[in-house]
């Protein structure tokens, strides 16, 4: 990942002042890397140097899901100043939607062999499928729900919050309370989502075995594709008139309001869009990881996403994605070497980035470049004098 970012840095940081200006080359690179990994996994034997292990494929898929989640947070935080500490809630809800579909696909291959009820329901002595589990055996319907439910939640929450002009830290803590409440709710067995254990033991998706290499590669490719689409779409949105209003709202909301914009409407729709992206990420995450449980709702997960964005540089789209990739790669390496050190490192990252890198790595490169340019111009000015 570091190689990738260093490769790109020359291209990327030239135009970091324009939001999302550098999405296209990144998407190109993303597609190339995905192709490389897929071919490496499927076409080469394990002894070949081009071979990419299935573990790496899954890891890559996971990182890309996280990157998409970071993108969702960046859209609301970086472009609109809404610091959401509850985006993992939308991620997890999307994941549960996918999880419910995968659960229904198990059919009678579960431990209890019940053709209709998932194992945990048999275990809880439930007699029939709850109404909200109906229809989830249909992939299309399940995916619609996986996106619609988080979207609706974001709409209701956003409408309530933005209409009464809840902003700043208030809003942040409210979003945190939202994910906290959902976590408590999903931990309850009576909710019918598997309680503490969540949903797991998935067998196949759309008829393809989840354990097979081909499925894994296909999932990675889908994730990369969805990330590219959301990146390009987000760039288009931010360049549009809608995006300009959003940035105006971030900078001075009251002035935009006085100019006649219904700022709360802009914010609500942006929030919904962001929640749906998070939900897509969650829905793609679950089949690759193989489990979804209420732990995904814990407030710390949401806050971790914020730090990815902060490190990469908010309000840049690519910065959030690179931040997520970087931090998660570091996390994988560090937790393997010193499990204890990770929380220290994460905590220190929070403090250091907010203190010294308010604009993230993107901003750092940008300001370094500006300094270089200004010192050059000042020296030329001196020569002239």
């Amino acid at each position, binding site marked *: 990942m570091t190689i990738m970012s260093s490769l790109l840095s020359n291209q990327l940081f030239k135009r970091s002042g324009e939001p999302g200006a550098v999405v296209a080359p990144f998407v190109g690179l993303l597609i190339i890397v995905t192709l490389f990994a897929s071919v490496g996994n499927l076409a080469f034997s394990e002894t070949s140097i081009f071979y990419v292990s299935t573990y790496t494929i899954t890891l890559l898929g996971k990182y890309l899901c996280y990157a998409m989640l970071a993108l969702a947070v960046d859209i609301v935080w970086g472009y609109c100043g809404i610091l959401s500490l509850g985006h993992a809630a939308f991620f997890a809800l999307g994941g549960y939607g996918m999880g419910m579909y995968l659960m229904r696909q198990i059919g009678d291959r579960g431990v209890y062999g019940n053709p209709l009820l998932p194992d945990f329901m048999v275990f809880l002595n439930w007699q029939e499928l709850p109404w909200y589990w109906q229809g989830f055996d249909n992939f299309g319907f399940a995916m619609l729900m996986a996106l619609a439910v988080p979207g609706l939640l974001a709409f209701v929450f956003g409408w309530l919050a933005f209409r009464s002009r809840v902003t700043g*830290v208030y809003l942040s803590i409210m979003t945190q*309370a939202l994910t906290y409440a959902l976590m408590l709710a999903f*931990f309850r067995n009576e909710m019918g989502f598997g309680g503490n254990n969540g949903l797991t033991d998935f067998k196949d998706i759309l008829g393809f075995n989840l354990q097979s290499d081909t499925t894994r590669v296909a999932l990675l490719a889908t994730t990369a594709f969805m990330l590219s689409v959301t990146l390009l779409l987000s760039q288009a949105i931010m360049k549009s008139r809608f995006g300009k209003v959003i940035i105006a709202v971030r900078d001075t909301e009251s002035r935009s309001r006085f100019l006649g914009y219904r700022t709360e409407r802009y914010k609500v729709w942006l929030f919904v869009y962001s929640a749906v992206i998070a939900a897509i990420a969650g829905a793609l995450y679950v089949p690759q990881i193989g489990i979804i449980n209420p732990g995904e709702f814990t407030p710390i997960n949401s806050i971790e996403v914020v730090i990815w964005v902060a490190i990469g540089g908010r309000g840049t789209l690519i910065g959030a994605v690179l931040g997520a990739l970087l931090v998660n790669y570091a996390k994988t390496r560090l937790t393997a070497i010193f499990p204890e050190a990770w929380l220290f490192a994460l905590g*220190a990252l929070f*403090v250091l980035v907010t203190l010294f890198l*308010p604009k993230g790595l993107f901003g750092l490169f940008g300001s370094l470049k500006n300094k270089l340019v200004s010192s050059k111009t000042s020296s030329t000015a001196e020569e002239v004098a």
Partner: protein
Amino acid sequence: MFRHAMNIRIIKTLSALLLALSISWVQADTFADLSAELTTVKLSKTKAVLEQLTETKDPRLLVMFEAMVEGNLYYQESTSELLVTESIKGVDQYRRLSSGELIDLSKDETAKVKVNNALRIYLRAEIARIQLTSEDADERKEAVEALYKKMDKSTVATVAELRASETDAGVRSAMDILMAMDMAKNGVDLSQRIEAVQFLTSSLEPPVRNLLIELADQVEEPKLAIEAGVALNVIEGKISFFNKVDTIFFGLSLGSVLLLASIGLAITFGVMGVINMAHGEMIMLGAYTTYVVQLLMPNYIDASIWVAIPAAFLVSGLMGVLIERSVIQFLHGRPLETLLATFGISLILQQLVRTVFSPLNRQVDTPSWMSGSIELNPVLFVTLNRFYIFIFALTVFAALVLILNKTSLGLNVRAVSQNRNMAKAMGIKTAKVDAMTFGLGSGIAGIAGVALSQLTNVGPNLGQGYIIDSFMVVVFGGVGNLFGTLVAAFTLGIANKVFEPITGAVLASILVLVFIILFIQKRPKGLFPQKGRAAE
């Protein structure tokens, strides 16, 4: 204790003095002789020996009689010494009645002291009498109350006899209830029984309720059944009232915890407009300080709490000042960044505690004066630790109000919270005030940790759960308003406990969260918003 009981009689009759002295002088001999006789005497004559034994008024009689009723009284065949069997860790062991020490004997060397039903009735009455004549009024009352569940004719007769000479009002009323129960159950005259049933409405004891249920269900005396039903309704009404009081008490207790956890946050948030996400960890540090103080003074657990309170205030307060000076002051005017940075600090502190103290929960001992509970009546108990924490929370709150309203620090804090720039212009050193405010808020969080350590286990995640709740309290009450925080904490505490039996604990806290989210819609500035220019 039996000698003490005798003393009461000494006061009554002077002549008894000599008698009592002579008894206690010869006691040792006669008790041993009589117990030896018990092992040989025929079953038909046993009662006479027991009566003689009773006369000795030996303190060991209670143990002996209880063992005999239960069939646990044995004797060593070789020496005729009385033994009591007792199951220690599942193994039956013999204990000398005379000295109470354990003795290693096999089953073949011992034989059981024989007992029959007639003797058991006599023994039960005597046991009751021994307990009922105890010196301590509480013990006497307990003995009477124990009889509610197993009354029989002879014990009731004993109680009726002792009722005449009883001096303690509490014991007397307990005895009255016992006698009324007996009358209601076994009385002959219907009107007397009805009267007894009516009298029983004054008691909340479960056995009384059971008796009334029994009487209400019987069909021989329809009138009595109706009366019992009425009495039962009265009692049920009282019980449900006291249960409500109990719920409110638990709500107040939860509210006092919330108050302690949130006033520190109310100060820092109110004055500086930043959410200190490490606030929960300040609480945790306070709890760990209590743990460390107890480790340092293991022999003075009762006093340790008085050391722990100032120590926790200092530890958390200094940590607060450190955080403010090293991080927060550089993030001034950027509340969201402050939130993130303090979150990072909270992660570091949690991991630090995990590394230093291990991730496992630590047990903090409760001082003896804080453990136990006061029984206000048979349905209503007040657990002492919760009661003291309630008082403590109010004290801390009062102290804080005094600091803010009566000291120059308080004046400065209020000035900065109302208008930072104006305060600066008037020569207040806002940087210093910020540090002091942060220290004060964090120190109070530390004190909250001391209180919490008495209620829950102390672990690295202790504080994490409180940050959201505390913030809810502050927002609900209105930022920058301490009385709002007080009202909000108790309202939320009681609301939580009222919902709990209906919906379950988890759903109750979810409902409260949803309620606050909706509440913010209507009153974004909380219950008691700041007025005037201070409000933006």
